[in-house]
């Protein structure tokens, strides 16, 4: 069970500081898995960006907490003319390594579902755009499609109105 957050309050700021601390632990992990290291390093930078932006623009923060109140995924969202744009999205650092204590599955998926609902409520028919950094497979599986913009490793991807409707129906 997840709970959506639509503002960065004092608790969120404190939880984002916990994330930053946890990224340090992740960055010291002993592994030969270069892909995992790349994800850890990217995740750490994204968390810095989310934390910095959440301080300046708290109303743009979106997050997901689990039933214990742990912040499990976070994003910065910008309202555009006809869609919501995901400036940054990251999962909690412990969600990159399944053996870590706070690991939980499906937090990013749940966060995207809540942003799709928000896009729908704001009159954008669920439309969302994201530049998927090394994670196009995940977004494609959710129903996003490449717009043709961006690069091979970070394509710009859109969740169309039709795909958003389907996603919301599946999640009822």
């Amino acid at each position: 069970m997840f709970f959506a957050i639509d503002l960065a309050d004092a608790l969120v700021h404190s939880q984002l500081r916990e994330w930053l601390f946890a990224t340090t632990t992740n960055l010291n992990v002993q592994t030969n898995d270069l892909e995992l290291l790349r994800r850890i390093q990217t995740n750490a930078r994204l968390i810095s960006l989310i934390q910095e932006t959440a301080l300046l623009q708290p109303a743009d923060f979106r997050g997901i907490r689990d039933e214990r109140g742990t912040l499990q995924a976070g994003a910065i969202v910008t309202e555009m003319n006809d869609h919501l744009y995901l400036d940054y999205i990251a999962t909690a650092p412990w969600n990159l390594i399944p053996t870590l204590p706070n690991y939980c599955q499906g937090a990013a998926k749940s966060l995207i579902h809540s942003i799709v609902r928000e896009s729908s409520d704001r009159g954008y028919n669920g439309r969302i755009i994201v530049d998927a950094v090394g994670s196009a497979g995940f977004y494609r599986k959710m129903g996003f499609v490449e717009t043709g913009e961006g690069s091979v490793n970070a394509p710009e991807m859109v969740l169309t109105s039709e795909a958003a409707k389907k996603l919301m129906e599946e999640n009822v």
Partner: protein
Amino acid sequence: MSEVLTDRTLEILELETGAMGCISPERHQHRWFQKIRCLEGKITAAQSPEEKIVLEQQLENINRIESKKAELIVDIYNLNSQIEPS
């Protein structure tokens, strides 16, 4: 690679990719310039020297923060430039 990934569940893909998204360096730079243009307009229209000083400090802060963000964003894109597309 993408054909292999279609067999994975969403939860596995979330773990394997980190579900990460980040504004492109070009789009970030465009937004940064928009913010600067907006503030420069306000500085020009400032009604008093005090107001102008406050706005100039804001401009300095924005440039400092966005410059730091730009470095992190470029870093993210460089880190992910060599991977096999998912």
